[in-house]
C-alpha cells in the first residue's frame, strides 16, 4: 500500500514536471536550447508595487535598421558613411556600442533604491564589452554643459508601464552599425522600453541628430527574455586578436 502511494506521488511529480511550459529554461537544458524554444509565454511579471519587473536577462535583436533611413542622412554624414572602412569599426577594438546598437550578448536592468524611490537604473551589458549604462532616475535634468562621452548622460522615468530614457552628451565616436552609420555630438535619443509579456521586451528609440539627419526617426528593437539565465563575464580585451596575422599582407608567423 505504501509502495503504491510512493509510486503515485512520483508519477504525479513526473507528470507535473513534463507538462511545464517548455519555453522556460529547465534544469539540464542549456540556455541555447531554451532560447531556441522561443520566448517564455505568460503575462508581464510585476513587482509587489505593480511596477513591471524588468529583472530578467534580455537578448536584443534587430539592432535598429539604419539603412532604411539612409535617405535622411545629411550630405556630410553620408560622406562619412561612404568613406568608412568597416574593418575599423570601434566595436572591433572593444569600444562601446551606443544605443540602439545591439550585440548577441544579453543585458540586464538593475535598480538602485532609496526607500521606495529608484535613484539609478543600471543596464548591464555582458558584451561586446562588459560595461554598463547609468540612468539617473531621481528626477534630475541634464546638465547645461556636457563634455561628450561614449554613453552620454541619461535620465529616466516611468510612464505607466514604460521606462523612458532620455540621453544627450554623446561623443561621435561609436558607429550605429557595422556599416559605419555615423552620429554627431548633437545626438539625442529617447528610448521607450516596455515589457510586453513574460518573454518579450520592446524598445522604441527616437533618434534625433540634427548634425547627421534631416529629421528625427524611430527604430524599434525587439528583445526576448530568458528565465534563469545569468549575465556572464565577457572581457573583450582578453582574447581579441581581431586582425592579428589574419589580414592580407600580414606576416604569416
Amino acid at each position, binding site marked *: 500500500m505504501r509502495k503504491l502511494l510512493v509510486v503515485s506521488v512520483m508519477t504525479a511529480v513526473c507528470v507535473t514536471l513534463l507538462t511545464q511550459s517548455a519555453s522556460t529554461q529547465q534544469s539540464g537544458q542549456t540556455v541555447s536550447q531554451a*532560447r531556441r524554444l522561443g520566448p517564455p509565454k505568460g503575462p508581464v511579471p510585476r513587482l509587489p508595487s505593480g511596477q513591471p519587473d524588468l529583472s530578467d536577462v534580455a537578448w536584443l535583436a534587430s539592432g535598429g535598421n539604419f539603412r532604411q533611413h539612409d535617405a535622411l542622412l545629411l550630405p556630410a554624414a553620408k560622406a562619412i558613411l561612404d568613406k568608412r572602412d568597416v574593418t575599423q569599426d570601434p566595436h572591433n577594438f572593444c569600444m562601446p556600442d551606443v544605443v540602439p546598437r545591439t550585440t548577441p550578448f544579453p543585458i540586464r536592468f538593475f535598480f538602485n533604491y532609496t526607500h521606495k524611490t529608484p535613484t539609478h537604473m543600471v543596464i548591464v551589458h555582458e558584451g561586446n564589452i562588459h560595461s554598463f549604462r547609468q540612468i539617473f532616475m531621481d528626477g534630475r535634468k541634464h546638465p547645461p554643459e556636457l563634455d561628450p562621452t561614449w554613453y552620454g548622460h541619461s535620465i529616466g522615468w516611468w510612464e505607466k508601464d514604460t521606462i523612458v530614457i532620455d540621453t544627450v552628451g554623446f561623443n561621435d565616436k561609436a558607429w550605429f552599425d557595422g556599416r559605419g552609420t555615423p552620429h554627431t555630438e548633437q545626438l539625442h535619443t529617447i528610448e521607450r522600453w516596455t515589457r510586453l509579456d513574460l518573454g518579450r521586451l520592446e524598445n522604441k528609440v527616437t533618434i534625433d541628430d540634427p548634425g547627421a539627419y534631416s529629421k528625427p526617426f524611430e527604430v524599434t528593437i525587439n528583445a526576448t527574455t530568458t528565465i534563469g539565465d545569468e549575465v556572464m563575464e565577457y572581457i573583450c580585451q582578453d582574447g581579441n586578436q581581431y586582425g592579428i596575422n589574419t*589580414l592580407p*599582407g600580414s606576416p604569416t608567423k
Partner: protein
Amino acid sequence: MMRTYAAILAAVTVGLTTPAAAHHAVGGEYDPNKPITVTGTVTKIDWVNPHARIYFDVKDATGTVTNWSVELAARVVLERMGWNGRSLKPGQVVTVIGDQARSGAPMLNARARENRLAQDGKTPEEYPITLQDGTPVLNNR
C-alpha cells in the same frame, strides 16, 4: 598596425559577411571561399571571449610540424550551449574544417563557416571539429 592594412582592406570589404552570432564581420580576416580541412593534435585551448581558440599541431608530409589555430564562437556562447573549457583537452586528435586566414597564416575560422552551413540547412557531416571517432565537439547546439 591596423592602419597599414586599411588601403588593402578597402577592396576586400565588398565581400564581407556578417554571421548571425559573430560580433564583427569576419570576412575581412578569413576567406569564405577558402575552406580547408586539417587534422592535428590539440596543444592549447584558449577559453576566452570574444573568441575561444583551439591550437593544434599539424604534421605535413615531410614531417614538419606547424601549430595551427581555429577561432570559434565567444566563450559565453559556447558555455550557453553546454560546452566548457575541458570539452577538448591537449593531446586529443581533431579534424578541423574552417575558412582560412586571408594572410595565408595557419589560422582558421570555424564559426563563420558553421553559421553559413546552418543557414543553408547543411547536414551534421559538416561539423567544424571532430574527434577521430567522428564525435563532434564545440559545435553549435
